[in-house]
């Protein structure tokens, strides 16, 4: 697996590549926001249980433990997931590998691509990242998403994926 900083202009070289490492802090930030929202939300739930008569010595440690676990997970998981995610573009298509425990390798041939999107949310923009979305006429993989690419790389891959006019792609 080669590191992403050495990407040449030609992306369809069949080399397996990691995502942009900035995806780790991005996902950590997203995770922090999500766990903060959940923590505040669960305060209300805990208060209701307390009013209903649940003992505080049980509720408080449980709340702390669950939220601590969530925060810890959101900090550790992105790096682990990063090690198991990669993609490869060659002349025939794009191959995306992901999943830590349940591992999936998905291959979409170029000639089956209906259209593509490159999107960039506000947080992604801060980190200079983009998400490539590939649409096919398939059923399970009608929409294949590859998040955590450097925005320019996502655009370059998209250039390669543009549908060829000679066929109907289904």
């Amino acid at each position, binding site marked *: 697996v080669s590191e992403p900083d050495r990407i040449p202009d030609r992306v369809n070289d069949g080399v397996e590549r990691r995502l942009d490492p900035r995806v780790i802090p991005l996902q950590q930030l997203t995770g922090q926001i999500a766990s903060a929202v959940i923590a505040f939300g669960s305060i209300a739930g805990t208060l209701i249980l307390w009013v209903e008569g649940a003992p505080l010595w049980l509720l408080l440690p449980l709340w702390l433990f669950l939220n601590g676990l969530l925060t810890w997970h959101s900090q550790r998981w992105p790096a682990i997931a990063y090690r198991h995610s990669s993609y490869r573009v060659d002349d025939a*298509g794009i191959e995306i590998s992901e999943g830590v425990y349940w591992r999936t390798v998905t291959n979409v041939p170029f000639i089956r691509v209906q259209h593509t999107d490159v999107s960039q949310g506000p947080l992604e923009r801060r980190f200079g990242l983009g998400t490539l979305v590939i649409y096919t006429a398939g059923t399970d993989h009608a929409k294949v998403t590859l998040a955590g690419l450097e925005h320019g790389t996502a655009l370059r891959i998209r250039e390669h994926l543009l549908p060829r006019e000679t066929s109907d792609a289904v």
Partner: protein
Amino acid sequence: MPFEQRLHPVSLLFALARSLRAFALPGLIVVATRGCSGRSSGPFSAPGGWEFWLMILLIPSIIAALARYLSFRLCYEETELIVRSGIIFRNERHIPYARVQNIEAVQNVAHRALGVTDVRIETGSGSEPEATISVLPFGAFEDMRRRVFAGRTAASAAADVEAIDASAPATRTLLRLSTRELLLCGFLENRGVVVVGAAYGVLWELGLVGWFWNLVGGNNLFDEGPIEQFLKSVAAGRRPAASQILSIIAGIGVLMVLIRLVSMVWALLRLYDFHLTRTGEDLRTRFGLITRIAVTIPQRRIQTVTIRQTPLYKWLGRASVRVETAGGRKGPETSPANERAVIAPVIRTEDVPALMTDLLPGFELANLPWEPIDQRAFRRAIKPRLFVAATITIGLGVPLGWWTLYLLPFTLAWATVAARIFVTHVRWTLTDDVVGIRTGWLWQRLTVARRSRIQAVTKHESPFDRRTGMARVRVDTAGATDFSHRVDVPYLARDTAMQLYARLLRA
């Protein structure tokens, strides 16, 4: 050579009828419930004249229909079909002939009396038809079919002009179902439950359920009828009388026969005069007694073909065959749209190979090299089944009492047998043209997907897969529904899976 086609003038009538129907059904229910519940003083019993208000509501739809009729134009260009509509908000849709997946004509009784038809043009995009045209003269539909598919061949294969003579392609009948076969088909499909359920729903809507039960059971079926007595005696811990048990068994038997009969009548109405023909490279089906449907599926649009057999089908030497195309079909299996994917509702087993060769060029059903899955698959497959069986049996013990634990050996044995049957009957195949899977022993299904139509290939490895060195390979095709039989091969040895995956990508 641009040629313009307009809507048939009676399309105004049909548009009017459609909007009337949209208003009439709620109106009918209002009238019916008022009739049932007597003279209530609810909001719906306001003094007459709702007919008048209904007419006012119709005015916008009349104007819309008129605008549509006046502005609608179908234009056949060299390589594409252009649909123009709208006077104020103009809309122009270009449909390249090469993208048309299939063309359908739907005619109900009124359409047929007037010699017109609804036409649906489907492309690979989404679950909706690309264009729904209501209504065209039937001749114009034939004309469209000819022009679109002739244009398609010209556009896609300009090189081999001699291949298909668009003006006079030979038509060959592949399958024609007699009344006897249709009744058999209804018997085998057993869709009666759906029809009975729908009819019951309508009765419920109209508030006629009580009336219906009075008609059937003479008001005492549930009050002091046999079912009530039976349940009471069981609940009281008494042993029910033999006559009670017999009458209930007889009742269930009669109901099952009735449902089969309904299913047979339903199949006869739905599929009456079923024809499957082949014209050039197009497959055409035509069927229906009340609503007549004509479907055209270009052969090269076929994504997958599924052959299905249940024990009854096997016993009678029959099978059913359906195809999937990319023309979006996302509804449940029983929806009317899905009916149209059935290319042979019932066919003699010995005729299946010939039909398959017509559906997939050069395909020989008998010569497929079927491969088993990994030998260790049974040890993998049995574990989740044992787990589910044990959980359900023990879980049922909570509300029903712990006597259910006596059932545990039986459910576990059943899970073992089911796992054994599953793994010994899964077979996969890969040839130059197709990839396929066959599952089931008594309830058998066989699906082949054209390799040139594969949308995506996936290799899955769960933690259990990795521990045992196995993997699963899934092939994604267009047009499958949630109920489709998919090419999804589990429990492959890792090397075999890698090979299959790599070979599929080399298509």
